[in-house]
């Protein structure tokens, strides 16, 4: 009977391992993304950021997590205790569940769903409940207003994000996330080059979907106290923030899978672009060399040691990336190449996307809420509809002449329809320019 049970569970053991790895690593990762954000913010403001807790502030997330854990748990008196407890859990669950359908590499995927893309979109739309119920359960006017604003924003930009995703699905012909990356490998090109406007629409919509600046009116520090998170203190607030950064990682992963080929190098499978295979190890060598170069200039001894350790780590990674590249074909080392290089490319692309998020947060001023809604409904949704038309027409026009690889007809038709979409976008932007300011006393919230 034990044998029977083992046979029953055997296909689920590896996904279970992946799931445990993701759930264990994700809070740590989210904490270090917070540290990265503070360091990047400091860099853009010509200062250093957290340097005190651990060398170069590397232990800051752990200190923050410890502090939040031991804080007093304040629950408002007349709030709905059950819903107050459940709301952050809903947000975090929705964020982590979306990770189940994402392929992080050629083999690293928890569940290969036929409708994986729609699954991620659907689970993200369930995350709205965490916000709305959290704001309501706090039994405070500011929380409720902030929750309604935040969920209205999320619902509005969900449609635009969905239609931007549809333009990639038209090119890919499948809803499965792994299938989309494999189609990009087959066509030897990333979908970003075939549907660039779809990517930019998805970029803007995903920034609004995750409540990041410049669309962070509902949770900004100087507006409505802190929106739906006002009454949440201690670890419950940490759960909401974990949910937000998890959503950021999910959205970044989805963008890389849809538009940047997931774990594929630029121009995958094309023999003329094989030079790109040397990029991972060169990049690691560069970073390691720079760390070594900066090590003697650190003022404190422990910072010197940390820089040397980082350099050593980079060199070890460069070696690990180089070995499968130079090993003979067919050996065990060479078979690890797609996994290792795939992980590197995936993390690099997600990192660049997250860096764009951080960059935009500290560069652009915040949108006012009515400007935000107007942008979503009056600009993004019409442009994304025109984009879907354009990509559909481009695919139809090039269907008869496409031999399986990337034909030049695809590029021509995509260029034509992109120009039409850009003209539509310009017309919409011009039309929305001379709107009068809203009246001083708005009639409804």
């Amino acid at each position, binding site marked *: 009977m034990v044998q029977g049970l083992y046979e029953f569970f055997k296909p689920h053991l590896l996904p279970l391992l992946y799931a445990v790895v993701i759930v264990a690593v994700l809070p740590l990762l989210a904490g270090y993304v917070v540290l990265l954000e503070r360091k990047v913010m400091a860099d853009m403001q010509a200062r250093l950021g957290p340097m005190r807790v651990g060398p170069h502030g590397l232990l800051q997330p752990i200190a923050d997590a410890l502090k939040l854990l031991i804080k007093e748990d304040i629950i408002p008196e007349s709030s709905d205790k059950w819903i107050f407890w459940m709301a952050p859990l809903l947000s975090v669950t929705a964020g982590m569940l979306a990770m189940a359908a994402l392929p992080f590499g050629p083999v690293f995927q928890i569940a290969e769903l*036929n409708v994986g893309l729609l699954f991620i979109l659907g689970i993200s739309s369930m995350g709205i409940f965490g916000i709305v119920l959290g704001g*309501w359960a706090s039994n405070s006017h500011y929380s409720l207003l902030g929750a309604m604003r935040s969920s209205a924003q999320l*619902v509005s930009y969900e449609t635009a994000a969905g239609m931007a995703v549809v333009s990639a699905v038209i090119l890919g012909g499948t809803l499965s996330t792994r299938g989309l990356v494999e189609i990009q490998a087959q066509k030897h090109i990333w979908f970003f080059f075939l549907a660039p406007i779809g990517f930019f629409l998805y970029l803007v919509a995903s920034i609004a979907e995750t409540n990041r600046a410049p669309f962070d009116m509902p949770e900004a520090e100087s507006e409505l106290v802190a929106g739906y998170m006002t009454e949440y203190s201690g670890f419950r607030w940490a759960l909401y923030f974990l949910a937000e950064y998890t959503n950021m990682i999910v959205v970044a992963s989805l963008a890389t899978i849809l538009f940047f080929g997931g774990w594929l190098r630029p121009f995958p499978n094309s023999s003329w672009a094989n030079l790109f295979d040397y990029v991972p190890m060169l990049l690691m060598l560069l970073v390691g060399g720079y760390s070594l170069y900066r090590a003697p200039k650190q003022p404190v001894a422990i910072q010197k040691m940390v820089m040397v350790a980082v350099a050593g780590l980079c060199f070890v990674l460069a070696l690990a990336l180089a070995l499968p590249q130079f090993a003979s074909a067919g050996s065990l080392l060479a078979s690890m190449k797609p996994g290792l290089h795939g992980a590197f490319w995936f993390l690099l692309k997600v990192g660049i996307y997250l860096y764009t998020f951080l960059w935009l947060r500290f560069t652009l001023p915040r949108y006012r809420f009515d400007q935000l809604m107007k942008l979503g409904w009056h600009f993004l949704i019409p442009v994304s509809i025109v984009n879907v038309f354009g990509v559909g027409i481009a695919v139809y026009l090039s269907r008869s002449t496409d031999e399986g690889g990337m034909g030049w007809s695809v590029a021509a038709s995509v260029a034509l329809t992109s120009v039409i979409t850009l003209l539509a976008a310009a017309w919409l932007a011009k039309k929305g320019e001379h709107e009068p300011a809203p009246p001083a006393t708005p009639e409804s919230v």
Partner: protein
Amino acid sequence: MFDVITFYLFGGLAVVSAILVVTARNAVHSAIFLVTALLATAGIFLQLHAEFLFIVQVILYVGGIMVLFVFVIMLVNLDVAARQTQFNRMWPFALLLALIVSGQIYAVVHYAQKGISDPLFQVAAAPASALEPNSELIGQALFTQYMLPFEIASIMLLVAMIGAVVMAKRKV
């Protein structure tokens, strides 16, 4: 075996959540239980190998309609309503009528089971391969055979959107 376990799990969850929807005092609690019931229904769809419908149920019903419900409940602010009686005056009579109707329907189901061991009625024996690939088949059916209802449904949604906007404006 796995099929049976998931059916009873999701089915039981759906029925229990539905009972809680109908008997909860607070409208927000009712809405949360309805979300659970809808997710359990989506689970039943998944167990029937209807994966596209499963995800459409989650996106549209849970992520769209229920968010709308929760919004409206918060706008209407039902603290006062929660303290009054929840069931109307005729509730025993109405309950009896509903149970009689459901008993009649169950009688139809029961007496139609004469040939129940007939493999014609075994859902588990029906090959799921006739419905795969699910999304492609639904897409083909929607855009070829059911094109007219599809277009009418989109016009109906447009009418509903315009109607909702008109009704929500303070002055028309």
